């Protein structure tokens, strides 16, 4: 007999067609099917969604906040990736 607790699942919801699934919280469930049922009952009681993803929390890998400097700051200096970096002559529209 198993004495283990139900695993934790992260819940992602698409609130309407055309938008990304967004993380909304977590819950406990024994398997994916019931995780989806539970997510529906816990997180969409007020028509908050039209599609649900659940992922067992164990399978989520996160970047390490203590690496944040080396992970993210290098991109801060690559200003040339943004359109505002470039001058466009006055007469040109819609570029």
């Amino acid at each position, binding site marked *: *007999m*198993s004495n283990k607790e*139900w695993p934790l699942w992260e819940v992602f919801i698409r609130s309407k067609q055309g938008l990304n699934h967004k993380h909304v919280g977590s819950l*406990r469930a024994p398997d994916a099917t*019931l995780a989806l049922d*539970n997510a529906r*009952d*816990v997180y969409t*009681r007020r028509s908050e969604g039209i599609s649900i993803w659940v992922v067992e929390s164990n399978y989520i890998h996160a970047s390490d906040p203590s690496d944040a400097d080396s992970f993210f700051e290098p991109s801060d200096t690559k200003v040339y990736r943004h359109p505002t970096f470039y001058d466009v002559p006055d007469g040109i529209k819609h570029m």
Partner: protein
Amino acid sequence: MKNEALYNYVLHLGDDSLILGQRLGEWCGHGPILEEDIAMTNISLDLIGQAMSLLDYAGEIDGQGKDHDALAFLRFEHEYRNVLLLEQPNGDFANTMMRQFLFDAFRKPLYEQLVASKDVQISAIAEKSLKETKYHLKHSSEWIIRLGDGTEESHNRVQNALDHLWRYTDELFSESDLDQSLVDAGIVPSMSEIKIQWAETVRSVLEEATLMIPTNNWQFEGGRRGVHSEHLGFLLADLQYMQRAYPNMTW
């Protein structure tokens, strides 16, 4: 009264939803895990919503100005038309889920047929309720399978629940002479068709759940005629308490 047959039929649909919704409401705050507490109250809310629409319509057919509350709270016990299955106490989670499953497996094909009813109001209520019921059946089936094929304890509990509740299942399909006139008029389906679909759902889910259909087939009935088990009186004592203790007030 315009149409006694239709009134009776809609009343029994409404009472089935009402009584099961009331029973499920008892679980609120006491579920086996928070997630399931929320799931059961969701089902209860759907059923109470159905009861409101159905009893309002029954009142309309009756033509005496009774709304869903007058019908839900101010009838005597023998005037309720729900099946015996639904007034049975919750018992443990296995018993609650088995009662739910046996009913959902019946309600889904019934609503599917009622969508095609020649009575536009019944058809509209059935269409909305069918969506809810499909989910109820999915959820209760999933639980029956997990409990049946889970641990030895859960298997025994849910098998016991099945053995106990089986005796109330034939009544789901009972048809009165009055009902027959509605069948002939294309307003409600014949129960024989519903029973075939019910039996197939029950067979396949119970098989996956490794559960045995009881061989003792002694059946009880009476609810549809207003002859109830001892349990309904207590349920009504709760349900009607406020309306009986404080008559003629608005809440």
